[in-house]
């Protein structure tokens, strides 16, 4: 039983404007990687890249490139190679709740929902972001074209404040899949709105990420700047506040190489942060707070003497179990020198998401994950690639999860 639709005037935004929300629950799915969807995304991409302000926002550019035909076709090909025999359709209606403080996330979520063959209701961030404005206005423009009329029943963007629970209640009441991005608190709040018995949630909770560097290899790196650039993009680009951003840097290798590698690596990072990173006062104070908390809870930790507040490094002599609770921002790193990667296994919890690495081969990482039967770490990527979005996220193959397999014997 679907509750009554809340008053439409209480929505802050609705795209496309002429959407008949009251009929949205009747939307029907299509197959995964539908060519119309792929063409539509390519059109959206082209219009985004042509937008005069697009280049100002690297995250918008990255997104626009990600939804280009070439890239999506690659995913499509892989998908149909893997899943040859089944018949698939989207699950029906996906209700996406984007985090309030990341501008671009809602767009990726929407794209995955479309690629899986679903009709999508997307709650966009309630906070104002220029990136969101660009994405939305261009999307509206593209949808004006009659060529994409088929898309109209498959997506709707809504905006409403945190307190308007009746909308969340309503959309939840008829969705087949609910995707909740955002912190643990947001998830807790959203889960209070019931979904139909056969529907399910995909929740992206707060995560913790680490970086593992093999010093024996790094000391031979001819382009330290490129490595530092990758690390900068992984961390500072989103104030080290993305769940993919490493908070612990583990150094492997012989002691002498570690010392050399650390010095050269951090010098190179410092060179970039000096030029490009603007540490706001709130972050500086917050880093001092985190430092005090960590010092109080761990009597062995010592701060690396620093020139300024941009890169705060804490030397750990042992790996404490509560490391994930010490979470800095804007460049606050715990560092640990390990004799081998296996030493990390003891602290890996379900909260661990991304392991970014340098100078370690895939087999080694595979062995590490399997041998220790880890409950956490969902993705391992080279330094610099942590923010690259993928159809597999947090351990879910999202297109598979958001689609329904039909068997015919």
């Amino acid at each position, binding site marked *: 039983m679907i509750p009554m639709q809340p008053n439409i005037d209480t929505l802050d935004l609705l795209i496309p404007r002429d959407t008949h929300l009251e009929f949205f629950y009747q939307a029907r799915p299509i197959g995964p990687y539908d060519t119309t969807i792929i063409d539509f995304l390519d059109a959206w991409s082209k219009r985004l890249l042509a937008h005069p302000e697009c280049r100002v926002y690297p995250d918008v550019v990255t997104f626009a490139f990600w939804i280009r035909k070439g890239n999506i076709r690659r995913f499509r090909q892989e998908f149909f190679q893997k899943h040859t025999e089944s018949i698939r359709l989207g699950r029906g209606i996906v209700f996406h709740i984007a985090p309030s403080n990341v501008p671009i996330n809602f767009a990726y979520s929407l794209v995955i929902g479309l690629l899986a063959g679903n009709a999508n209701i997307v709650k966009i961030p309630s906070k104002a972001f220029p990136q969101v404005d660009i994405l939305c206005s261009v999307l509206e423009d593209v949808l004006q074209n009659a060529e994409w009329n088929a898309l109209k029943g498959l997506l709707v963007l809504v905006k409403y404040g945190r307190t308007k629970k009746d909308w969340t209640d309503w959309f939840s009441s008829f969705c087949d899949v609910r995707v909740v991005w955002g912190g643990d*608190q947001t998830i807790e709040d959203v889960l209070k709105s019931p979904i139909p018995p056969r529907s399910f949630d995909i929740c992206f909770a707060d995560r913790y990420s680490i970086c593992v560097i093999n010093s024996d290899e790094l000391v031979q790196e001819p382009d330290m700047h490129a490595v530092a650039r990758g690390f900068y993009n992984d961390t500072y680009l989103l104030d080290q506040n*993305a769940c993919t951003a490493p908070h612990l840097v583990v150094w492997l290798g012989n002691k002498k190489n570690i010392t050399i590698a650390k010095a050269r690596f951090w010098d190179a990072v410092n060179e970039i942060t000096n030029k490009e990173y603007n540490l706001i006062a709130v972050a500086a104070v917050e880093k001092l707070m985190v430092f005090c908390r960590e*010092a109080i809870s761990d009597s062995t930790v010592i701060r690396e003497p620093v020139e300024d507040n941009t890169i705060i490094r804490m030397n750990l002599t042992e790996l404490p179990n509560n490391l994930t609770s010490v979470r800095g921002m804007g460049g606050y790193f715990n560092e640990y020198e390990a004799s081998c990667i296996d030493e990390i296994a003891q602290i890996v919890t379900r909260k661990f998401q991304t392991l970014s690495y340098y100078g370690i081969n895939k087999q080694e990482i595979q062995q590490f994950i399997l041998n220790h039967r880890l409950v956490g770490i969902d993705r391992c990527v080279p330094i610099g690639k942590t923010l690259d979005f993928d159809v597999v996220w947090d351990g879910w193959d999202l297109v598979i999860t958001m689609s329904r397999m039909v068997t015919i014997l």
Partner: protein
Amino acid sequence: MYDISDIQNIPPFSLGREQKELFLSKHLRDLTLYHYQQCPEYRRILDAWPFDVNVDVSYKNLPFLPVRLFKEYELKSVDEQYVVKQMNSSGTTGQQVSKIFLDKETATNQTKILTKIVSDFIGSKRLPMIILDTRAVLKDRNLFSARGAGILGYSIFGSDKIYALDEEMCIDFESLDAFLEKHSGEDIFLFGFTFMVWQHFYKELVKSRKLLDLSKGILIHGGGWKKLVDEAVDNTTFKARLKDVCNLTKIYNFYGMVEQVGTIYMECEFGHLHAPIFSDVIIRNPKDFSEVNIGEEGLIEVVSILPKSYPGHALLTEDSGIILGEDNCPCGRKGRYFSVTGRIKSAEIRGCSDTYATKY
């Protein structure tokens, strides 16, 4: 460690830069060592800093704690049994409040020093006093709110005392008129918290259209401008409006916090906040916490020689401010004078977690 009787008689605005530097450095270094020995959490922070408590450095180079730390930890440098008072910052419901633990010595010293500082502005003679607040604030004496503590602290300057607001936060005109009648011709001391004065005294007075003559009044108020900024009321407007409604012309703001009660920063006749010899402000660059030049804006660190029962002698606030000058204010008071320019903003912190969005 100092004995309060040795220093309380030094006039509070009498030391020039070099003398004050020596004076504060000595006492604040002593306190750093003392808290290092007495407070285990403080000790761990200094060990991790890392900071050597045995080196002689200027007070400007001593470690400082973020003031918010007192909201998360119960930091004490005395045994529980010697705690005579716990003071809490006033926070709205749901907000964490600072918890400050006072022993007899620290509590007494706070009162003595506060008296010295305020007397420099209103004289040492006790005056009839109007408290621009309600008696209800003091009801729970065990739980000292910043407001209650402030009122009690300043009450020592009053001879005959009256509360201007009743329990419903309405102006008690009847009692006020009688009080002013009784003390006509005398100087009157008024005290209140900035927001309370504005919201419940000024606004109500305007609404009532009643006449109140406070031309003989001296108002001291503090507690922050955060709520008034939303209404676009600054210090100048505040003064002008109060003068309009009740002829009150002597109005002094002060800057201070529950984490360093006693050493307040009073505004002089020229509108400058002044650091007495018992405390100081250091303006730091958020980028590296170095001290900025006179005239440049930065984060305010406050140091005070009073906190002995808790490690609050050097605190980094979340306020920003500017040093306007040192030893050369036209009012004649020595030491640094400054202005508070606001509170640091959470701005747009990016990331996928909602932890920070809700924290600020």
